[in-house]
């Protein structure tokens, strides 16, 4: 999983590099278009196209029947029953490509979340770093800060969690690696101070399949680490179109679906 994440991470970094300094929506439109193409090709390859065409024809016939026999209640009810049955079959036929496409889509969304899901920090904007420790682990935690990042308040040692939190202030834009010393262990955490579209990782988590699937932006913590989570609080981002702000995922789904429907004819796909 780590290997897959690092390969995918590299691919998306390269893919989004040309859009890094552009407004986020531009890159998202391009990525959505690519995903639409991928979705169409995947759908075509994994779905039973003749069966889908046939069931859609039946649904259309049922609708036509309702219109044609609009004075015959029995015929209308029969047609509605047939439409319902054909709709269920249509949904069933879509289940197979859905299952096939779900895996790559989850991977893609997880990657995009770290490019589009968080606001960039600004220089001199305070940010919270927190290390959560295993129950009973030593609370002897300290920081190694690179040049350009300073500690803005003393560490808060939280016995009840247990863990430690710091308020950091990056003094200039850039990508930093923070060192966190837990006992004899040295852990690292990325800090990106930049308002461009770039990979930002809010968490480093203990290794598990789900954690690595959903938080692929940084490698997981070592399995035997005293830390279970390192969190760096980037603010959530909304993408705004004509003053209407929404989570990037809403725009992504909207664009992907609209573009897929717009392009399905070119690829000879029946959806």
């Amino acid at each position, binding site marked *: 999983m780590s290997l897959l994440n690092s390969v995918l991470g590299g691919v998306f970094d390269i893919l989004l590099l040309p859009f890094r300094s552009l407004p986020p929506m531009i890159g998202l439109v391009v990525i959505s278009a690519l995903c639409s193409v991928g979705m169409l090709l995947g759908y075509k390859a994994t779905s039973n196209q003749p069966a889908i065409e046939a069931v859609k024809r039946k649904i259309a016939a049922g609708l036509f029947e309702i219109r044609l026999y609009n004075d015959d209640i029995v015929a209308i009810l029969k047609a509605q029953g047939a439409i319902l049955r054909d709709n269920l079959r249509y949904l069933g036929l879509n289940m197979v490509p859905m299952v096939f496409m779900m895996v790559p889509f989850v991977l893609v969304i997880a990657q995009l979340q770290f490019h589009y899901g968080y606001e960039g920090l600004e220089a001199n904007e*305070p940010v919270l770093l927190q290390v959560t420790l295993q129950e009973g682990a030593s609370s002897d935690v300290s920081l190694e800060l690179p040049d350009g990042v300073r500690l803005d308040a003393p560490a808060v*040692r*939280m016995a*009840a969690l247990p863990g430690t*939190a*710091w308020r950091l202030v990056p003094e200039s834009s850039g990508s930093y690696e923070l060192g966190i010393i837990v006992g004899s262990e040295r852990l690292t955490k990325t800090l990106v101070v930049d308002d461009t579209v770039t990979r930002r990782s809010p968490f480093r988590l203990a290794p598990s399949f789900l954690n690595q699937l959903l938080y692929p932006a940084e490698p997981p913590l070592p399995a035997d680490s005293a830390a279970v989570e390192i969190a760096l609080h980037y603010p959530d981002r909304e993408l705004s179109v004509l003053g209407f702000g929404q989570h990037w995922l809403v725009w992504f789904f909207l664009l992907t679906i609209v573009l897929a429907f717009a392009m399905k004819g070119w690829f000879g796909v029946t959806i």
Partner: protein
Amino acid sequence: MKALRLSAIALLAVAAAGALFSLGARAQTPTENMIVMGIDGLDYTLVREMIDAGRLPNLARMEREGQFGPLETAATPQSPVAWSNFITGLDSGGHGIFDFLHRDLTSGLPFGFPYQATALNEPPGPEFKMAGYVFPLWGGDPKLGRHGTAFWQHLADAGIPATVVRMPANYPPVGAGERELSGMGTPDLRGSPGESFFFSTDRRQFMKTDVSGGFIYPADVIDGKFEGTIIGLDDNPLTEAENDAISTDFVVYVDPDEDVAKFEVGTQQFVMQAGEWSDWKTLDFEMLPYLASMTGAVRFFLKSVRPEFEVYVTPIQVDPMAPALPIAEPAEFALELAEVTGRFYTQEMPEDTHAINNGVLDLAEFLEQTRIAREETVAQFRYLRDTFEGGFLFSYFGSGDQTSHVMWGVTRDTGHPQYDPALHDQYRELIPNIYEEFDALIGETLDTIDDNTTLVVMSDHGFASWRRSFNLNTWLVENGYMTLQRQTSLPVKEFFNGVDWRRTRAYSIGISALYLNLRGREPSGQVAPGDRMALLEQIERDLLATIDPVTGEPAVTKIYIRERDFHDRGNLEIGPDIIVGFANGTRGSGNNALGGIAEEVITDNTEEWSGDHIMDHRTVPGVLFASRPLQREATSLQNLAAALLAEFGIDDFPDGTTPITVINPE
């Protein structure tokens, strides 16, 4: 000879040009644009002194190039009344605002229940109830208590765009201008004028009983962790259950050694050191699971970590990014301001003077809070000024007034009962420094505006030291106008507890308002309507004859009887029968406002509120500056708007010179 002739022609040309220039200067072109800075409580006498001392160079420039003079305030000089005079060109008889508080006689109480005069609520409409939840169909919306037409409606009618920011007595905004943000009169999210939250491990704090304008809760820090609750509403209006409070929780982790803590408020997490204020944090209050919630915004202040753990939370502001109450017109205007300058205090008077009275914030902490509030309003003003594209812009600044309330007497009056030489030495320049800050902002603005724009700087009243407190209810008791039940002992804290209403002819609610217990009007009325005027004149004589036993001077110098002293009509009936103009230095006592009766009529003012202006209005004038002479004379708040409108060629606005009748829409 030819050279001589040429020289003569040149001389004549120069003379002609000079004459034309001077003619042009006298025949001023009409104003195309105007910016008005309304600075609450800017005192005429202090401004005059500071100009003469060379400390307000930009206001001095306005005096030199334009005009400067005192501006007569309203009777009574309370901000909602004064600003309503300005807004409508009417006096209280027309606009219907006589005091911060009015009384509701439909409540059934003999004295009527006090309510905030400028903001009312429509009665709730029909409701739909299901599964323990209540779904109001309509009604219950806030409604402006002020009557009369706002002057910027006339600007709008003339096609002049008006932006009106934080105008007092304009909640909810009337919507006549292009953009309006409400000001004084705007409640916090709880619907009150502003109730803060204070959590403390110190018994001396949370055992206090005389707390107003906020809540003090005990705090338990267990294993370095404190869990607090902020109550958004005491009773969820969407449930049938009573006292079903809606609240949001927060957690604070305290470091075992350092004075530092980490806060978790919803999804927001931040570290604070003792003595720090947070930026705005949002709070979500769920009213109907997954369907209805409201958002508020607060700032946290970590007052202390040890030996006592103490956290102050500001009153819950309406979140300008998701307003639950109508604070702006259009609503997007609040969002625009918040996006550009950050979230901001939306409640009527953000400076938490209650917190200092309750001993929750000390003086330095209070002053820091006022600085934050002032910077927010200044940032908004700069944004609006710098993007001003013409028309009319009004912006209100309130923090000078609130700071003066707390600091005026103790730093400027050696005769004040709480005058402290040490405090005086430390803070004597505080109020003058705030005046200098405003002067600098005015200078920036003068440098920004073009020749077609007039800058006006005005205030609603001045300031005076508040040395002596006058309890009108006690005076009424001592002078036989109010009778107590035999078993009643003084003091009475509030709501006339122990008053014998069958033998009471007058009572007082508010700071300087006096009502007769009138038959046919008050539920237990005793005074026959035919005896009313004679009784009012008798009370007037007795009040004017009252001498402060300590100073030997009259305690009251002006009486306003409503029919006699207010000229406008239509809403006169809302008001008190008499308004008392206390002598300069004396003010109505705070506990009188809600029907408290003290042991003595006049006592030293011992409140953490040493300056005031609710006195004889002639002694606390405001100021009026204009960057060029106004064409129409403005001498009072009531005729100021007419003079400003005249600059735009609008001449049909009331100015107090003729009786005006306003039809009460009710």
